[in-house]
């Protein structure tokens, strides 16, 4: 949605992970799904996500995908050392 110049910051600043200007979740073809039986909470998916769409509450919790913004690029699935992330076709 359009904003006027009085309601925007001086330069594009996006809070992380949310992007108020563009919700990219609808771009997905495949969605990453984390298998908690295999996940070892190494958070490599969080580290590699280029859109900051992997949320980590604390080190004891499992990582969670923010599907409002995840574009489904699959990097997390590719990098997961335990193959704990499946890319599932969106329907």
């Amino acid at each position, binding site marked *: 949605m359009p904003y006027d110049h009085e309601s925007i910051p001086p*330069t594009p600043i996006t809070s992380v992970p949310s992007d108020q200007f563009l919700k990219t979740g609808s771009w997905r073809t495949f969605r990453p799904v984390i298998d908690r039986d295999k996940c070892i909470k190494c958070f490599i998916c969080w580290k590699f996500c280029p859109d*900051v769409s992997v949320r980590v509450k604390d080190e004891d919790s499992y990582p969670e995908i923010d599907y409002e913004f995840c574009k489904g690029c699959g990097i997390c699935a590719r990098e997961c050392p335990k193959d704990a992330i499946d890319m599932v076709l969106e329907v």
Partner: protein
Amino acid sequence: MRKVITGNHATAYGAKLSRPGVISAYPITPQTTIVEHIADFIADGELSCEFVKVESEHSAMAACISAQNTGARTFTATSAHGLALMHEMLMWAAAGRLPIVMVNVNRAMGPPWSIWADHLDSVAQRDTGWMQVYCEDNQEILDTTIMSFKVGESRDVLMPTMIAEDAFYLSHTVEPVDIPDQEDVDAFLPPYDPPFKLDVDDPKGFGSLVMPNNYMEFRYLMKLALDRARERIVEVDREFEEAFGRSHGGLVDLYRCEDAEYLIVAVGTTSSTVREVVDQLRSEGEKVGLARIRVFRPFPVDEVRAMVRGVKGVAVLDRVYSFGAFGPFYTELIAALYGQDERPVIKDYLVGIGGRDVRSKHIRDIYSNLKAVTRDGLDSETEWIDLNRPGGGA
């Protein structure tokens, strides 16, 4: 304390006194001694700051942008081809609203290869969003460095500044320079307090994609920022005068322009020679003054309109030419005056390109020519001064 130092040494003092957190620069003639003096200050323990060594000017500006984004005050210096290599990053710094301060030693662009004074390098960066201040002497470089942090860091400005000093005429020439005390500079220039910055405890993304329905608004904000900077530059110049007892003229530095019928508009060190010639001409009864365009961006539109009121003829001295058009300072002046009821005769004189020495006699010749064309009508819009002509005539 007054010391006899070069413009590059004065630059290093200006940077040091402003207490930058990070400096990143790549050496290039005639800027190199700025980096050397800064390195000396750091090695001697006089300046506590992170110096980031890089492999190019593009990287130097990228380092400044990143550092400034973390909330550090940053400084850099370059010249000519180094500045050209920074071009992309300059736009990032400005649109990122990062009030970085940079000194550019004005040097001609090659080829032909040249290391001498010329304004093409900085004028070619006119539309990047950077403020541009052209200096007349070494004192002004030091003082403007301190002032530019204050102007740029104003919450309602947040824009970077490029300070321009002529190669060799300032960079390698020693003159007496007053070096202010650190505590006085500290009282004048508070620590950098940005409204936003990179923070691991409060992560943010900067410079993300914006669709056409919002891009223009960000550019409009930059326009407003530089409009406000016009006032801030004048205010900060006044504050500086109160604190340190000297002013450099704000946006346009007028000298003996009251009751003037003719104005010589000059930029950088040429202005200093014009100042002397104006005194000579005044003593001969001529009604002439110097209008030194100190700030090129934001362009001082109102000041330019006011200064020509009652003036018959204006000579613009351009140390740079826009190929296929005119001298850029002339073009800006003409643009500001179009639509005014009263317009003087204005002629553009190309001087000092690539370090050709601009002497008193050239200024006197220009003045005579200006009076003639004001009386008889313009022969042409532009004239190249001291050009070697076929057959040996000048």
